[in-house]
């Protein structure tokens, strides 16, 4: 009985200690002309540090924004698997230089353990052909992290800063969860508290975080929608996540 309770307690810890993340991971986020003309994009839903996948239903929206113009890419998504769960992938041709912002609005996800719906508005920024124009683009999503640091061309150890916005306005003292995409499983957290690190924005909604190592890092600013959602006839909380995925490069010493 004791062993059972311990297992149950561990299971509970495992589910509460880690965060859900919508993910958009491109095959390259700084594409030079020598790299080719296309990138692959993978859309998923997961616990990225632990490599635990969840099912991503076909999103409500998937777009690319470049030069102020937004293009619908939803019909291009192909089924794939990420972390053994349903996910989506597509190839995209970068026709012109500049920053391309890929954004996904998933369907609200019912999370019984949190007794709430979760919608993570997820995006990532890709620079094409040595041109960073548009790196600070704000898409006007329901909730969004607007980068203050260029969201590519960052060294490991660099500070990443962004403004958390909800309905276009900064969110004072917004809570931001930070998690590393532990793609090869090599990272180990000494405490569950360090799988997802939690920080807060300042009074202007600006947060700062210095990453300890190269790779993909997800920043998720969490707010609760003013309007609840219905589940089995009951009002339930609706978590709105503003997620941005940023790649940091290893220091280039010889």
């Amino acid at each position, binding site marked *: 009985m004791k062993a059972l309770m311990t297992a149950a307690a561990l299971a509970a810890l495992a589910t509460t200690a880690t965060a859900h993340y919508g993910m958009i991971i491109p095959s390259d986020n700084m594409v030079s*002309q*020598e790299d080719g*003309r296309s990138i692959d994009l993978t859309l998923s839903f997961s616990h990225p540090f632990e490599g635990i996948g969840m099912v991503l239903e076909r999103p409500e929206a998937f777009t690319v924004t470049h030069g102020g113009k937004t293009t619908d890419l939803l019909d291009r998504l192909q089924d794939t698997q990420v972390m053994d769960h349903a996910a989506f992938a597509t190839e995209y*041709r970068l*026709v*012109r*230089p500049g920053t391309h912002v890929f954004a996904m609005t998933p369907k609200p996800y019912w999370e019984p353990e949190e007794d709430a719906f979760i919608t993570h508005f997820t995006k990532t920024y890709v620079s094409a*052909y*040595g*041109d*960073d*124009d548009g790196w600070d683009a704000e898409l006007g999503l329901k909730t969004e992290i607007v980068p203050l640091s260029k969201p590519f061309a960052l060294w490991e150890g660099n500070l990443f800063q962004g403004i958390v916005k909800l309905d276009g306005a900064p969110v004072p003292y917004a809570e931001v969860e930070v998690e590393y995409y532990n793609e090869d499983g090599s990272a180990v957290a000494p405490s569950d508290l360090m799988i997802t690190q939690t920080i807060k924005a300042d009074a202007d909604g600006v947060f700062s975080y210095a990453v300890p190592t190269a790779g993909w890092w997800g920043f998720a600013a969490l707010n609760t929608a003013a309007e609840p959602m219905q589940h089995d006839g009951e009002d339930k909380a609706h978590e709105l996540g503003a997620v941005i995925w940023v790649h940091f490069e290893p220091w280039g010493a010889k």
Partner: protein
Amino acid sequence: MIRALAFALALAALPVAAHDLRVFASVSGQTVTVESTFSSGRVPTGGEIRVLDAQNVLLMTLDIGDEGKTQFALPEGAANTGLMIEVEVSEGHSDYWMLTPDDIAYGQGKN
């Protein structure tokens, strides 16, 4: 392979540390458009464009046009082998765009 080698030689001839000029070229039908801008967003007021074939043979030299845009007719045979387009403004401000057969086919709606 020969084409790759020729391009590599052409690249080696360019200054390495001149990243503040950005050159992009695209094709629409039979017309090549070269766009030259500084990373600040400003456009160069003067400069030279050199168009080379895959064997590194200089095909033409052009001036940078208004608003940093220059157009020329796609040379015969370029669709199969591609073009190297080098732009030099001044004092080491230079960049290039390697217009590949794939770029040309895309601009002609063939892929």
